[in-house]
């Protein structure tokens, strides 16, 4: 199966979904995305980090610099209540949209 880049605007939704599972740092999120999509979805760091920071500015996630091993600090992202709410709402919208698309394109019997 070919790796597809994420549809415009869906990255936020994906990130929120991953963070709903638990706090994570950027690399963890990227890895998780690959795992969850069984390697079929991949995002570049160039869009991952701006997206994470944008979510923070919007208040959907919050972040904290935490110490990790080897004397490094990593930024841990945690989903907020507002983020959760948005995730549920947009998941519904997405599901409805996907269903309609499937119906229109005839891939769903």
């Amino acid at each position: 199966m070919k790796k597809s880049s994420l549809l415009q605007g869906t990255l936020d939704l994906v990130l929120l979904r991953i963070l709903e599972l638990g706090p994570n740092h950027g690399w963890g999120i990227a890895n998780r995305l690959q795992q969850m999509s069984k390697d079929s979805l991949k995002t570049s760091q160039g869009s991952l980090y701006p997206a994470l920071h944008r979510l923070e500015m919007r208040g959907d996630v919050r972040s904290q610099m935490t110490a990790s091993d080897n004397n490094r600090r990593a930024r841990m992202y945690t989903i907020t209540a507002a983020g959760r709410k948005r995730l549920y709402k947009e998941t519904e919208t997405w599901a409805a949209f996907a269903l309609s698309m499937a119906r229109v394109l005839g891939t769903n019997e």
Partner: protein
Amino acid sequence: MITRSIAFVRGLLRRRAIDDEIAEELRDHLEREIEMHVSRGVSPDEARRRAIRDLGGLTQTIEATRAVRATWFDGLGRDARYAARVLRRSPLFTATALALLVLGIGATTAILSVAYAVLVRPLPFPNADRLVFITEKDGAGVAWPNFEDWRLRAKSFDGLAGSLADAVLMTTRDVPRRFESRSVTSNFFRVLGVVALRGRLFDASDARPDATPTAVVSHAFWLRELGGNTAAIGQTIPFNGKSFHVIGVLPPSFRFMTPAEVYLLIEPQVAADYRGMQSRTTHTTFYVVGRLKAGVSVTGARTEMQTLQTALAGDSTSAKDVGIQLVTLADRIVGDMAATLTVLAGAVALLLLITCANLAALLLNRNAARAHEFTIRAAIGGNRWQLIRQLLVEHAMLIAAGAALGTVAGAFILHGLVGAAPRDLPRLDEIRLDFTVMSGITAVSCACAFMFGVVPTLRTFGGTGAGLATRSGRGTRSRSSLRTALMIGEIALATVLLSGSGLMIQTMRRLSRVDPGFDPHNLKTVMFSLQGAAWPDARKEVFYRSVVERLRAVPGVEDAAITYSLPMLGSNWWNVFMTQGTTAEYWTSVGEFPNAGMVPVTAGYFEMLRIPLLKGRYFNRSDTPTSLPVAIMSSSAARKYWPNEDPIGKQVRQGYPNDPYGPWRTIVGVVGDIKQNGIDQEMPRQVFLPIVQQPRTTVFAIARLRAPVPGSSIEAAIHDLDRTIPVFNDRTIDQVMTEASSRRRVAMLVLSVFGGVALFLAAIGLYGVVAQSVADRHHEIGVRMALGATSRQVVRLFLRHGLVVIAIGVPAGLLGATVAVRSLASLVYGITVTDPATLGAVALVLVAVTAVASFLPSRSAARTDPLTILRAE
């Protein structure tokens, strides 16, 4: 929301730190990637290579991430930097715009600050709008018995108090010193709502006949004379040879009408019949102030007082000329200064409008010149909002700089204004550079810059890339008609200002030509006072004569005399009098008793002032305290009361028939009228008395100078006779006249300077508009001339544009002027505010100047060589 704001604030405060954090975050990502590769058996070097490859451009990622955080604040900083660069690159534009803003904001702030402090800000008393000021008919002081009746009967007031401006001698040292004082009723401070800074103020018990004499002093007096010491309260100070207990100190902000340093109670003075105050016919400068009861209007109180006063007149046959004046205290204090300030504020508001119009024209021109830049920015994807923001930032920076410099300029102008202000400008000490005023003016400038800088640019910009090639597209025309409209407005406003200026110049010219009835030049005057028990009338009379002799002996003094009322400064004593042979009933039927200014003078007064003798004789040395009581009438008094008779030999006596004052006096002479009350006033009726027959305590010594004489040598001449005499108010009659005309002069100066600036700005503006239209139609001129148009026709083409602007602007301005100059009514002298000659001259000047301003660029159009233009295409 809170998270978001915190993140935002953090973004503002810790930009550097955030950059570092982002870098750190990405480094962590990189390390983890490498570790992952290594754990899968890749060599460390290869792992690092792969990780870096996968991560993509590190710098771009940092940039993009930061862009998310920085949002509009960073953009603003970028715009500001860009704007600063743009402004620096066009110094002429920046300097012109700044000069306009500094002029507009500075001048307006200063003058409106004065107007605000004097006219708008409430007086420094609690509920000051409830305070009213009451005088008798024609603003005369209130007779004490009337005041007592008012206090008993008037129902409109929570309190009625009164005060009399006076002076006291402090006799602590061997040379007594004189202080301005105010004699007040015991409830005076309570009615005003003033609270003592230290000690207490007067109450009713202080006014009891057996009470210890008490005094209240000003803050300045307390600091200077009593060392600012609280222990000074309770001390005794000798005033006018009598001991007073200092009971309290007034707050530093306290000021009521004329400044005073010592406050004494008036009740004991009235009890001693000071200045004849027990009489109902004596009108000193005792004025009444009242605090209105809740719910009582000024009009209501006025009606009640009128009725009351008429009823009082019915009670006592002596009070026939009844009537009162009741105005708010603020109106009284500001007085006719309100008119002057309104004119100045109006003038400066017009100037602000003109500078705004110029700023607008300037911005229009500039943004038109930059249309190319904007179009390119649009074409390469700059959006409308960014352009608006860019222009806003640019204009905001200009205005911020202009406002800052303008405030500094305003402070300087204000300092100059306060220094040059007429000394009688009320509330002078309350004037500050006003923040409210300044913010308002800056807001007006901002709005103007936005309206004319940003909005028209956007309209032509249209949000599309179209117009890149057509640099003289449709936008030019709409901008040029906006500019034309601005110019018409500017010329109209300049016309209004210059009309005011013209009227004031005419006024000053007419005033300088008025004949005052005497020779007012080279006259020096001082006041001196013979107060206290040491000066019985007999001794005063001798002293006056000695002073005159001494002064005549001073080198440089040609002649000298003494008077109770200084010419140009008004009458200090106005009284009714009876003429022999007419009854009280006769005058009652006429409706008014004879009245005039009573002026005790020394012999030689008329000769010294060069007042012509019309009939009879002047006073001379044969008039003594014991000789026949005599009087001299001014010509207007003689004409009014003896229209068909020779007044010489007739007799007059001061006071009402049942309440006379002094002896019957025989009229021995008639002299010419003089401008006693000021050069712009009517010549009042006057009755002159020999001062030896009617001694006064505080008088003016006047010396006519042959050569300049310092005030100190006049003072020394008096002190040679008695060094304990207080001598004060050294000045010349010329100074008195200059001071009296200072309001007019200030109005004339401000209107002329502003008018000149306005005319200049309008001329420059018009020049710019015509020049711009010549530049815009360059190509057209070439074609027309190539097709055979003469240069005269080309000139006419553009001149017409300028002339249309003038033809609309000047009449519109004149129309506006006829309305606006009404506020000058109280300042204009000798002409009407719509004086056709003056307004005509102003219109001519405007037409001439603006016509030249539009002719010059038109002529340059005709000078162009059609071949050069066409070849350039």
